[in-house]
């Protein structure tokens, strides 16, 4: 590859709001006072349920949507008010990939990748070399002359990525780019995005409803709920110490640690009158992730621990453990204090009788 090292651009959302006028004069706030800054060269994930406003937010970065209040800046340039040729110039600096790929069925792999270059008015010989480079980069060398309908979903998304990179953008937007792909293909596509981020240094802003995608590639994450960013920060911090209920519910799906059904069905929020067990989530972060704390709890304090579910995984390069345990109600407070004193985080989930 003779790729020029492009530097990513920063993205800033400054008190962005978007309201739609619905029939009957009722207005609906898709986004409400959103401020978020995305560092140049980072991979930032915006996670939210469908209808939370994440797609609207992403599409403001290349001016496909306009905010009704506030500003959106890419590399310090205001996108939200740009028009005509100025807007088209910004768009060439911002590549975008889509959930359903949005490839032209009537163009070959090479033809699809050439499209943004043709649109930008690049001369034919240059288009040819650039397209050949891009096809190699995304590993589709043998498929240059084939049509999208002949290729798999993962290969189609690779065309989409190559096409998005064609005009050497400073930012890459990913609109649920892996949501239509199977888990294995998702991994290869995410790995490709990671490589691109590392090699070209371009900023990647992605939206997803899958926490696994965020865990696998994002350095930063913002959680969006009903048009507001409820939590944002470094991915590791958000994963290990989620503050907001929405974040927790997204995490419960991905950490793979959920209560077994027989416990969940019996879970109550008030302590039973006599005895019973308290169900607690224990999170281990950083260096503590591998300490045998539960063994010490039993040995040093004499408190019996019942393990219900658990896993240790990696976020970035940091280990992160998540355990669900139950403790006798009378000793639970003491046990939790012990664990907290040793750098673990605990959270009471409920009681079983």
């Amino acid at each position, binding site marked *: 590859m003779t790729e020029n090292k492009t530097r990513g651009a920063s993205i800033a959302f400054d008190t962005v709001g978007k309201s739609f006028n619905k029939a009957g004069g009722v207005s609906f706030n898709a986004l409400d006072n959103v401020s978020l800054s995305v560092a140049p060269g980072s991979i930032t994930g915006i996670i939210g349920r469908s209808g939370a406003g994440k797609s609207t937010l992403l599409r403001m970065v290349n001016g496909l949507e306009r905010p009704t209040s506030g500003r959106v800046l890419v590399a310090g340039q205001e996108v939200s008010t740009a028009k005509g040729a100025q807007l088209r110039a910004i768009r060439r600096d911002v590549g975008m990939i889509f959930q359903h790929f949005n490839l032209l*069925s009537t163009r070959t792999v090479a033809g699809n990748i050439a499209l943004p270059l043709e649109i930008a008015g690049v001369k034919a010989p240059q288009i040819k070399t650039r397209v050949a480079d891009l096809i190699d980069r995304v590993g589709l060398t043998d498929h240059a002359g084939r049509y999208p*309908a002949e290729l798999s979903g993962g290969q189609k998304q690779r065309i989409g990525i190559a096409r998005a990179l064609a005009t050497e953008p400073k930012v890459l937007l990913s609109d649920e780019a892996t949501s239509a792909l199977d888990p294995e293909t998702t991994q290869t596509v995410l790995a490709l995005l990671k490589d691109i981020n590392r090699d070209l240094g371009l900023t990647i802003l992605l939206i997803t409803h899958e926490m696994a995608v965020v865990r696998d590639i994002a350095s930063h994450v913002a959680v969006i709920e009903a048009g507001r960013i409820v939590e944002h920060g470094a991915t590791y911090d958000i994963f290990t110490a989620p503050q907001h209920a929405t974040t927790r519910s997204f995490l419960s799906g991905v950490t793979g640690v959920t209560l077994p059904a027989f416990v969940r069905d019996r879970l109550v929020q008030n302590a039973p009158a006599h005895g019973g067990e308290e169900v607690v989530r224990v999170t281990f972060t950083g260096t503590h992730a591998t300490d045998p704390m539960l063994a010490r709890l039993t040995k040093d304090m004499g408190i019996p621990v019942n393990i219900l579910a658990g896993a240790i995984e990696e976020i970035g390069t940091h280990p992160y453990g998540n355990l669900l345990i139950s403790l006798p109600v009378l000793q639970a407070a003491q046990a939790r204090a012990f664990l907290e004193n040793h750098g673990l985080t605990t959270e009471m989930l409920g009681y079983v009788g």
Partner: protein
Amino acid sequence: MSANLINLLLEATGQTLYMVAISALFGTLLGLPLGLFLATSQRGELVSMPWVNKILGLVVNATRSVPFIILVVAIIPFTRMVAGTSIGTTAAIVPLTIATVPFIARLVENAIREVDAGLIEAARAMGATPVQIITKVLLREALPSIILGLTLAIVSLIGYSAMVGAVGGEGLGDLGIRYGYQRFMPDVMAIVVVILIVLVQLVQSIGERIAAAVDKRATKSGGQ
């Protein structure tokens, strides 16, 4: 069958082909841009001109509501202005074209609207101008449907051309009426019908072949 009759049939076939070909050509030249405009000019679309869109839509609907035989007679003054005469094969091309333009326009509009909105969005995200989106994305992606639409338009033109005998348009339909029906020559009628069937079959299968050749949406081998 007499040589005279064969000559008549050949001549009539030639007249039909002439009328259909010329009016299909003019119909496409006018109907294609009109359809393209109708498909892209509603509020919030590429070349948003909602009022012009509405007015042209009304004109298209009005033209399409008039039965063809009435249109032929109703626009005689206009035909005379354009063709210099209101009688004959060339004159018949005028009403044929006027009837075809709105038909082709609607077919093209539908074909363009079938193009996945995601493709327009992708092109916009690349920084494409409306003209680039129309030429590089919409027209190319809609081409198979447009070709099928034009095929349909030509087939119905062949049908319409049978009615222009009313203004001396001649052609196969006219021959069938005058000889087959009015002179009680069922063999002429039969031959006319057979020629029309063959013509329509030819047009249809050529149209389908071209459409399939430019359509890359499905693999020929039935892959994914």
